[in-house]
């Protein structure tokens, strides 16, 4: 497996506060990597750095490098709008646009220049199928996305992210606001999507990390404490801090 995404000595500051303290991590393609750790450990900040979303926060700074396909994207000459088109992102709270289901999916491709109606129809269908939502919404594509349930909205957001065919998908606690049935659907979906994508997921749910990820990284106080295959992390971690966290004695 080759690494599609790699960070090198990545440090992120909010003002004077160093939120991420020099993290080296690699993400292989066609895999799921889970980032775990107690709240405030820097895992979400790290995730948001990967598509330069922290740029939008006033006072944040970032040093070190992020390599995507051999290019350092933490460089001043990187066009973040182009970068973000190759990286999908989904948040904890579903945030579909206030538009129809169809328009939510077609929005990105349209913006990037696809005008042909047939082609757009196909992209919408493909994306919704990939997100396992097609059968539930195919008869009401032109209804508001806000009429969907929370779990459906979240899958719609995943479909929206997939519509521009990203290579990398960043998930920030994508199931933590959903009920168990919807969560199971999202997890199933992640396992399917990993056949084509590099997925990085932040989660507070240990079982979820164990179920879906191939590798797990444990963060604490802005540092990467341990990174290994998920089954190693959960059965035989080398660092006692990781051991304490995953066994629930701390965090």
């Amino acid at each position, binding site marked *: 497996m080759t690494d599609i995404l790699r960070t090198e000595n990545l440090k992120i500051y909010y003002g004077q506060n160093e939120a991420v303290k020099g993290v080296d991590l690699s993400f292989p393609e066609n895999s799921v990597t889970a980032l775990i750790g107690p709240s405030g450990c820097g895992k979400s900040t790290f995730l948001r750095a990967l*598509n330069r*979303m922290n740029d*939008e926060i006033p006072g944040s700074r970032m040093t070190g490098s992020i390599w995507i396909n051999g290019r350092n994207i933490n460089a001043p000459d990187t066009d*973040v*709008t*182009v*970068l*973000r*088109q190759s*990286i*999908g*992102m989904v*948040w904890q*709270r579903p*945030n*579909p*646009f*206030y*538009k*129809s289901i169809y*328009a939510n999916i077609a*929005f*990105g491709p349209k*913006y990037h220049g696809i005008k042909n109606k047939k082609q757009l129809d196909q992209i919408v269908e493909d994306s919704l199928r990939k997100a396992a939502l097609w059968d539930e919404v195919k008869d009401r594509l*032109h*209804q*508001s*996305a*806000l009429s969907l349930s929370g779990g459906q909205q979240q899958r719609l*957001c995943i479909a*929206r*992210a997939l519509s*521009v065919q990203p290579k990398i998908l960043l998930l920030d606690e994508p199931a933590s606001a959903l009920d168990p049935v919807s969560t199971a659907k999202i997890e199933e979906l992640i396992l399917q999507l990993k056949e084509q994508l590099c997925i990085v997921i932040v989660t507070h749910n240990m079982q979820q990390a164990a179920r879906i990820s191939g590798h797990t990284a444990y963060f604490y106080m802005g540092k990467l404490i341990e990174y290994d295959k998920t089954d190693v992390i959960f059965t035989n971690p080398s660092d006692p801090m990781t051991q304490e966290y995953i066994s629930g004695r701390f965090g």
Partner: protein
Amino acid sequence: MSAKLKDRIATGVIVAFSLLIIAILLGMLGYILVRGLSHISWDFLTSVPETIRAGGGIGPQLFNSLYLLVLTLIITIPLGIGAGIYMAEYAKGGRLTAAVRLVVEVLSSFPSIVVGLFGLLLIVNTFNFGFSVLSGALVLTIFNMPLMVRVTEQAFRNVPKEQKEAGLAMGLSHWKIITSILFPVALPAIITGTILAAGRIFGEAAALLFTAGMTTPRLDFTDWNPMSLNSPINPMRPAETLSVHIWKVNSEGIAPDAAEIAAGASAVLVLMVLIFNLLARWVGRLLYRKFTSIK
């Protein structure tokens, strides 16, 4: 006193206040309509006013009010929305923003008669626009700008920030996010602001006395050349609006039916505000549905 009793008293007081406000409103509306409606006829709405004889109408004034509304909104809406978007999306919390906000707030508390005199000195005299529809529209813009800016800024700020994040993460430009994602969500609030602004345009009299003037040339509704003096759409001609006409008829009208004319014109004014309100909401809802697919 028990918590339950307190709760009952508080509820009673609040309900009583609400009823009082509704009663005042209905009372005023009823009074104006009952006195005025009987005087409204097609002839009254279309004919020109009479100075000495009875039977004058309010045709030109009605047209002037509508024309002034359109002209003012054409100036106010782009400026107000533009400045509002700037305040919500681009302005950094620096001195310029604070200064703009202060100016906006001070402007909104200016007495209309003062703004009217300012318009007379600057727009009518110095700019030499004369007593004209355009002068009136510019002065009304000064009034409505604070409202539009504030409403637009709030409307944009109230869009959930996750919407913007989703757009950013998709690699959209800031402008695209504003126009395609934020604006449709903010639209209903902006429409409400526009309706409030329009209400002021219809209702304002003091500031228009010195700017749009108290006379109207003999309008020729077959002449649509905006440069000709008798054309209804000439923006440089003086234009007495309905509100100004009501004031004039009431204070110095010598026609024998002056009181009836004032009553009829008041009723027409109230109905116009009502119709515009409903119309704007309807158009706003159509647009909102078109943009968002929300039923």
